[in-house]
């Protein structure tokens, strides 16, 4: 992995202003959302600090606005900007957590299947193939629905974030397994692996210390792309009312809350979280595109 960070890294990066802007946006969002309690002007989900008198305020530049609420307030008088920061935190947590889970499962399955081959490979890859026939969002949705049906309602609401990570992570491992398997099969035949065998290294060491570092490049690109997909999946499930509870809404749940009042002309509760979600996803996609082109210049 390390030798892939070539000397042209900064040159290539600075030559692509779109990527620089995207990376800065991602960094700002991660910082802003992680430290939401510090940056948010209000604590939106603390009933003690919100007042119903402040409800449905338009954004600060519109008529009848209150300068305390930069992006307006929702029906219960919660500050939209603060709710977005807290909501973005959940979106990022689920997005990154779910992809981490997919990477771990996919790496294990892919390395085992690719390195050992034979029956193990055939069985694992058939399972992967069957799951691959179904769109990940549907699997996450059904998995979430089944858990919801089998767990008591309060347990389900309490563990909303881990359950989302589990559902989306389990829905996304197949693609990682496929690319890891393909790379592992190539690496297995290389001379350095034969050399490792010759000096008597245990198989686990060969796989973890010698093969794994050589297949991280494609995994990194896919992981970046999948974070965007996972964030959208989380937002979609929450929008459908299957994700985070409304007492602790993610960006998708905020949009769902806002969408109920579209016809009363209250557009800001939908638009601002929507823009934040879109910018977040586009930024991750653009950075992933750049990393892919950087690691594989032939595609440019």
């Amino acid at each position, binding site marked *: 992995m390390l030798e892939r960070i070539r000397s042209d890294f900064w040159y290539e990066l600075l030559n692509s202003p779109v990527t620089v802007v995207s990376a800065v946006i991602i960094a700002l969002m991660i910082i802003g959302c992680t430290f939401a309690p510090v940056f948010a002007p209000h604590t939106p989900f603390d009933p003690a600090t919100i007042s119903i008198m402040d409800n449905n305020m338009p954004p600060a530049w519109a008529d009848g606005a209150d300068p305390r609420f930069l992006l307006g307030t929702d029906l219960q008088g919660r500050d939209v900007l603060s709710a977005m920061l807290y909501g973005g935190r959940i979106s990022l947590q689920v997005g990154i957590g779910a992809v981490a889970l997919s990477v771990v499962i996919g790496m294990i399955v892919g390395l085992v299947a690719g390195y050992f081959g034979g029956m193990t490979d055939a069985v694992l890859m058939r399972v992967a193939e069957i799951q691959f026939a179904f769109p990940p*969002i549907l699997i996450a949705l059904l998995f979430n629905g089944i858990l*919801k049906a089998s767990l008591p309602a309060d347990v389900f609401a309490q563990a909303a974030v881990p359950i989302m990570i589990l559902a989306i992570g389990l829905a996304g491992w197949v693609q990682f397994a496929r690319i890891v398997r393909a790379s592992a099969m190539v690496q297995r035949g290389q001379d350095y692996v034969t050399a490792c065998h010759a000096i008597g290294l245990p198989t686990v060491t060969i796989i973890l210390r010698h093969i794994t570092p050589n297949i991280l490049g494609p995994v990194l690109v896919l992981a970046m792309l999948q974070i965007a997909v996972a964030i959208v999946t989380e937002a979609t499930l929450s929008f459908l009312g299957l994700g985070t509870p409304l007492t602790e809404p993610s960006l998708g749940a905020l949009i769902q809350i806002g969408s109920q009042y579209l016809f009363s002309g209250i557009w800001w509760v939908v638009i601002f979280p929507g823009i934040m979600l879109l910018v977040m*996803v586009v930024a991750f996609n653009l950075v992933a595109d750049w990393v892919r082109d950087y690691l594989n210049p032939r595609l440019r």
Partner: protein
Amino acid sequence: MYFLLARLLQATIVMLCVALVGFLVFQFVGDPVLSLVGQETSVEDREALRESLGLNDPILVQYARYVVNAVQGDFGISYSFNRDVSEMIADRLPATIELVMLSGVLSLLLAIPAGIYTGIRRKGGIAQTIMALSVIGVSIPSFLLGILLILVFSVWLNWLPSFGRGDVAVVLGFRSSLFTWDGLSHALMPAAVLCLFQLGVILRLIRAEMLEVLRTDYIRFAWARGLPGGRVYFRHALKNTLVPVVTAIGLQLSSLFAFSIITERVFQWPGMGSLLLHAIGQSDIPLLAAYLIFVGLVFTISNLVVDAIYVLIDPRIRHGAL
């Protein structure tokens, strides 16, 4: 032929696995007896019902019975509607199919020419604009796009209706809302939302394949022979991009069904997706399991059709070279 038979066998195994998942969900999530009779029934009566439903048989026998029933279109009775599940699916299916068909056709009509164009003129201004738009098309969550369309066209401009299916008409035995103006105006926004995501994915794939093929030696040779551009692009290059593109379209068809769940919720379209969300909300397990198996069937059949098309378009598969 061997290739197709192998695929058919594989498809059957896939369907048995999907049925197994459906059956296990049925078996282990909630108690069917409790869901049918409620709390007041005595223990003896419950036991009698359990016996008569065959719930005390060995699990393999129950699985076999489930599969046999499912093959005959019997998925049991919905807990929350107290109706035959297959009947309910048959009720809702046409609405979803018309939405999926409309958006599928729309996205292919737009994606194929745009993909070829951006592949050939990749440095041009129009191509760059199309690519930039496609990044947004792929990135924007479909529920958000739906809400934005409603906000603009229903709330602000008041041009299009924001929910429901509108009038339906019967033409040649098909009941569909696509045959009336009112129905079309209702279908336009949901179909556009469903279409946009597919459009971006297929367009980018066709472009990538074109770029890949245009770099190969046989294309350079075709140029060297002095063939006109149209002939090189469409007769030589396009043909070799078809296999991955057909695969992607097959996969996209299944994701159209998945994404129709979201679109149907946003536009309150009375199709299969709304039914599934209702089933999840009510923990209606027979309905959930039946939906799972039904969608599995749609995916398996579309994959089989894709395999059959491979045989038609790729002579290497036909002659067993792959």
